[in-house]
């Protein structure tokens, strides 16, 4: 992945990876999805370090996906739309508590369980577009292989069925939005119960779609592949013909290598998270701090009338 210095005029930049410094109330999630390399800029005379996000270029030249996705499209889509999201996000978070958080954490925090905070649209769209460029490659398309193909066959029946479901989701996302292939490894959290049979079968590949800037990070899924179905993504090349755009995307543009490597990361993180939860549970039991949070449970003896 090429990280270009898209900002100019900054003396002695420090590259640093700031990890999650602030969680948010009640969450046990550790979202170290991908540490986003950022520039830490020491502003002259202020002694203040601020972290700005960069406009990362796609991992190929802007004309590399011709004729399927034109250079002109990239000049606007990456050069204008994506750039504007980055610039506006940096302006919005400067000096706030979001400044210094990873992009992924900003996305989840500002999603605010659906009651979107102002920086959400910009943060999520920055993340989404980074992810989208990396989902494609020159001479892409074809079929995946190995474990990814096995899981696709297991969870969709066949590769063709998966393609059909993915294209349908993308075609029926009304208005602006995205379609996704995700790895779903979360278990239903219920206050007073445990999943009695956590197993690898709980984890599966799923196709989802999302409106506007929303992405599956906010649902605690691991995204593996996306296609942008905002009209600006395809209008110059395909006008209203979204289905044609989607077919070409699947046949000529998808980078299955990227999807496979994301699947590996996703599985590793899911395992890591389970170990972490197991460790914490054991710790709580040892310290006798189990049930430190009062959990409201319905007991039959509460009933005035019992059977």
């Amino acid at each position, binding site marked *: 992945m090429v990280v270009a210095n898209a900002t100019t005029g900054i003396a002695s930049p420090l590259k640093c990876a700031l990890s999650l410094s602030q969680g948010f109330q009640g969450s046990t999630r550790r979202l170290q999805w991908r540490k986003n390399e950022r520039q830490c800029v020491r502003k002259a005379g202020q002694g203040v370090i601020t972290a700005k996000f960069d406009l990362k270029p796609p991992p190929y030249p802007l004309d590399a996906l011709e004729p399927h996705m034109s250079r002109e499209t990239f000049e606007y889509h990456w050069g204008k739309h994506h750039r504007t999201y980055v610039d506006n996000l940096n302006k919005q978070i400067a000096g706030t508590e979001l400044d210094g958080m990873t992009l992924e954490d900003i996305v989840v925090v500002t999603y605010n369980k659906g009651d979107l905070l102002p920086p959400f649209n910009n943060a999520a769209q920055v993340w989404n577009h980074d992810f989208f460029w990396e989902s494609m490659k020159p001479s892409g398309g074809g079929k995946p292989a190995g474990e990814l193909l096995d899981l696709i066959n297991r969870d969709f029946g066949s590769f063709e069925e998966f393609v059909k479901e993915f294209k349908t989701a993308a075609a029926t996302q*009304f208005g602006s939005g995205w379609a996704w292939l995700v790895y779903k490894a979360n278990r239903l959290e219920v206050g007073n119960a445990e999943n009695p049979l956590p197993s690898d079968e709980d984890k599966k590949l799923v196709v989802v779609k999302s409106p506007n800037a929303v992405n599956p990070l906010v649902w605690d899924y691991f995204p593996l592949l996306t296609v942008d179905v905002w009209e600006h993504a395809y209008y110059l090349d395909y006008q209203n013909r979204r289905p044609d755009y989607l077919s070409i995307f699947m046949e000529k543009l998808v980078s299955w290598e990227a999807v496979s490597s994301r699947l590996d990361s996703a599985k590793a993180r899911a395992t890591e998270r389970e170990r972490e939860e197991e460790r914490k549970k054991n710790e709580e039991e040892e310290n006798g701090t189990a049930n430190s949070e009062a959990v409201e449970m319905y007991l039959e003896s509460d009933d005035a009338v019992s059977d």
Partner: protein
Amino acid sequence: MALRTLLTRKNLANSPMGMLGLRGLQTFSLPDLPYDYGTLEPAISGDIMQLHHQKHHQTYITNYNKALEQLDDAVAKGDASAVVKLQSAIKFNGGGHVNHSIFWKNLAPIREGGGEPPKSSLGWAIDNHFGSLEVLIQKMNAEGAALQGSGWVWLGVDKEFKRLVVETTANQDPLVTKGSNLVPLLGIDVWEHAYYLQYKNVRPDYLKNIWKVINWKYASEVYEKECP
């Protein structure tokens, strides 16, 4: 009670009212534009007008008709869950048809009055409520530019309180989804398909220029009907 028994679908076929009784399904078709595609230039290009009308609007109509047919079927079968499932397709596509039908009337070539400021009662109401036409335009442009994703920005009138409103709606939601008393006078489509080929990502330029071809005569007619 007796009346209802008389008028069930089954009985209608045999009753004297049988000929009129069975519900016919009205299908919709693309309304013609009252002007040629190229006559709104340079504010809106002929290419955009043609695509917007012949492709986008037509697709909403095609899909709306399809959804209505499926709805009719589901209602006849008493399939409640199918009826509910169809609601979003009806809202998207029916809304798309409703909104675009209004939009074409909201535009006019300059030589047919496009861009001419509103006079008489609507002009007065705008000045009274917003201060001036310029203020209204600025407000609609600001809201249109700020709208995330796809949607519309509207000038409407609340027919109960006889008051002008500026509202936005998402996707193809008609203005009435923001208030059952709201009547649209003017809608500006801010879906990217409405401007992208010409203005690309610069939606504010599209909004600035579209006022040159806004048909205030139509908006006035609608206003005067609601606020005589």
